[in-house]
């Protein structure tokens, strides 16, 4: 826990506190807008962190992430529009509470539940990371290849929409990851003779394009159709009754969410649904759910926050992102010269523990910002989108330019903005594409190194115990849809991701 204390000392420097505060503030500011979830918000606001030192930048991103997540929950409760899938469950009982005049209690319990889960999540990361890193240090190319394969299999089994569409997205992501010079031979691939493409496409530009600009394009279609009703918000502090009803769901949601968050493709969304299903199942009167039960807000909100914390573990310990948010964060870390993975704790302990501590500080900021300023967020919900989209575009244009100080990247942003819009219109989920894009380079390199080491023999993978065990796990996960008892569970999980 000494590292975690060092992380807190780093984060608690006035400069870092200030940027965490700004991150939470602008994250909430954008995240509260209907239709803009944490992924799009982070993608749009990433440019704000350019020019900062790595630790401060990551702390600010953590602030943006938590701010955006909480902003999405506020919108879900007040307007019944979830910013992202992870807030869908909050809509069910949160909006009913708002209609019954209890919007304040719903927003309050969201903030407190998220704070408690975030605190437990940060401690859990501190406890789990070190042993995981000790195992991960022994990993070679075969183990990494097997792990990435397992990640893709889990992603496919839990994939939103059809498997065919998800597979297309994965392979398209792999093709995009191949753009640039081949790492082994130096041969240019898909560069069209353009020197700007020799180093490949930046993850920051591609995610800003697909999630950020694509989202702006999509919202531009219905520029004049937003009509937000006024919902009164008062009594934000939960009563003793509210606490009594919420304590159990928050505790269970925190543990469940953290475990679910470790899964690739699961993260905060699956965590919130699992928590809601559990609370409804064990409730004395399940019929209250869907009619404004505070447990239906407290559990899932705690769970999605813990899920977000859990999803940082594969990124920080193995360098493998499990969802689009962590994929963008991986890109940002690389941009700042930090490579996540088992060696990060030794090479950049300040960043590693800074990230962990910033999750906690991000949650504290939320309590300080969101509850007192809730009236401002409510007013912001009423600002028409037609006044907001131009500044959002400006942020992304500057961000794309700043990555490599290149106008070419602004063109790349526009291209991927169009791609993101097209994918949305054609009902393709972009998350597998982004994950495959991020993992494609390491996957190919590790596979080629494995085959070089083994002189082309695939049996080599089975001779390595960790790689063999991971491959067996991948095989078992792939076989899950064929097992009768697992079918129902998977159908539920996929239905969750469908939302």
């Amino acid at each position, binding site marked *: 826990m000494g590292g975690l204390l060092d992380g807190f000392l780093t984060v608690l420097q006035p400069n870092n506190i200030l940027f965490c505060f700004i991150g939470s503030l602008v994250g909430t500011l954008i995240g509260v807008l209907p239709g803009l979830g944490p992924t799009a918000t982070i993608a749009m606001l990433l*440019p*704000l962190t*350019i*020019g*900062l030192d790595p630790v401060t930048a990551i702390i600010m991103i953590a602030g943006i992430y938590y701010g955006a997540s909480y902003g999405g929950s506020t919108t879900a409760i007040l307007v019944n529009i979830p910013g992202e899938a992870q807030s869908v469950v909050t809509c069910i009982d949160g909006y009913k509470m708002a209609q019954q005049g209890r919007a304040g209690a719903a927003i309050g319990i969201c903030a407190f539940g998220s704070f408690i889960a975030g605190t437990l999540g940060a401690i859990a990361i501190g406890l789990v990371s070190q042993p995981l890193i000790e195992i991960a240090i022994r990993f070679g190319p075969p183990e990494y290849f097997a792990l990435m394969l397992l990640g893709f299999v889990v992603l496919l089994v839990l994939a939103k929409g*059809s498997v*065919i*569409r998800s*597979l*297309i997205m994965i*392979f*398209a992501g*792999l*093709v995009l990851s*191949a753009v640039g010079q*081949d790492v*082994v*031979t130096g*041969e240019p*691939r*898909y560069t069209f003779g353009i020197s700007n493409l020799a180093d490949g496409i930046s993850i920051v530009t591609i995610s800003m394009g697909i999630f950020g600009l694509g989202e*702006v*394009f999509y919202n*531009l*279609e*219905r*520029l004049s159709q937003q009509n937000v009703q006024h919902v009164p918000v008062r009594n934000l502090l939960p009563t003793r009754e509210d606490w009594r009803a919420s304590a159990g769901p928050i505790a269970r949601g925190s543990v469940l969410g953290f475990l679910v968050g470790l899964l690739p493709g699961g993260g905060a969304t699956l965590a919130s649904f699992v928590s809601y299903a559990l609370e409804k199942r064990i409730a004395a009167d399940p019929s209250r759910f869907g009619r404004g039960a505070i447990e239906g807000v407290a559990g899932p909100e705690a769970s999605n926050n813990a899920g977000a914390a859990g999803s940082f573990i594969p990124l920080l310990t193995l360098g493998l992102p499990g969802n689009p948010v962590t994929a963008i964060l991986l890109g940002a870390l690389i941009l700042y010269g930090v490579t996540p993975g088992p060696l990060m704790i030794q090479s950049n302990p300040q960043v590693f523990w800074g990230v962990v501590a910033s999750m906690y500080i991000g949650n504290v900021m939320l309590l300080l910002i969101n509850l007192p300023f809730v009236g401002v967020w409510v007013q912001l919900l009423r600002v*028409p989108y*037609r*006044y907001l*989209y*131009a*500044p959002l*575009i*400006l*942020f992304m*244009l*500057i961000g794309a*330019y*700043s990555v490599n*100080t290149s*106008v070419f990247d*602004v*063109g790349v942003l*526009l291209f991927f*903005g*169009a791609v993101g*819009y*097209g994918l949305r219109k*054609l*009902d*393709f989920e972009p998350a597998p594409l982004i994950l495959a894009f991020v993992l*494609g380079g390491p996957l*190919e390199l590790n*596979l*080629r190194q494995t*085959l*070089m080491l083994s*002189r*082309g023999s695939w049996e080599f993978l089975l001779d390595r115990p960790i790689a063999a065990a991971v491959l067996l796990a991948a095989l078992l996960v792939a076989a899950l849809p064929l097992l009768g008892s697992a079918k129902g569970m998977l159908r539920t999980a996929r239905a969750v991701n469908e939302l």
Partner: protein
Amino acid sequence: MRDLVGGIVFLAVGGLTLYLARGLPLGQVRLPGPGALPTIAGVAITLLSLLLAWRGMKSLRAVTRSDGPAPDWQGYSRIAAVAALIAVYTAVISWLGFFVSTALLMTVLFMLGVERPMRWGPPAAGLAATAAAYVLFVTLLDVRLPVGSLWGG
């Protein structure tokens, strides 16, 4: 319908992937070359998109009615206009510099969003947004943005 259109789009993507990968060495199983992954991915995208298009064709035969609301041409033209403006911005920013090109872009974007585009609001908002971005990114965050060759940058 989306399956069919999606299938056709990605069939083209798969075909293009394979076409562009044709000159890359495939290597051997022992030592895969730079063309191995693009070729495998290209073949997979082609086959999967064929499957998707075929599924789309089947559902098209089964359902004759339209499966979605009528297209909003006004919305589409708004998106096309914004995309075209960004393309023009990309083309002129090195020449005009960040401040002038961004102020112009922001003004037109604000004009697209308001009911009375010809009043003073959009230019004022465009200038204010550009100035705020300049102060934030250039002055406070020390980000280098193009000065513009027209002004000797």
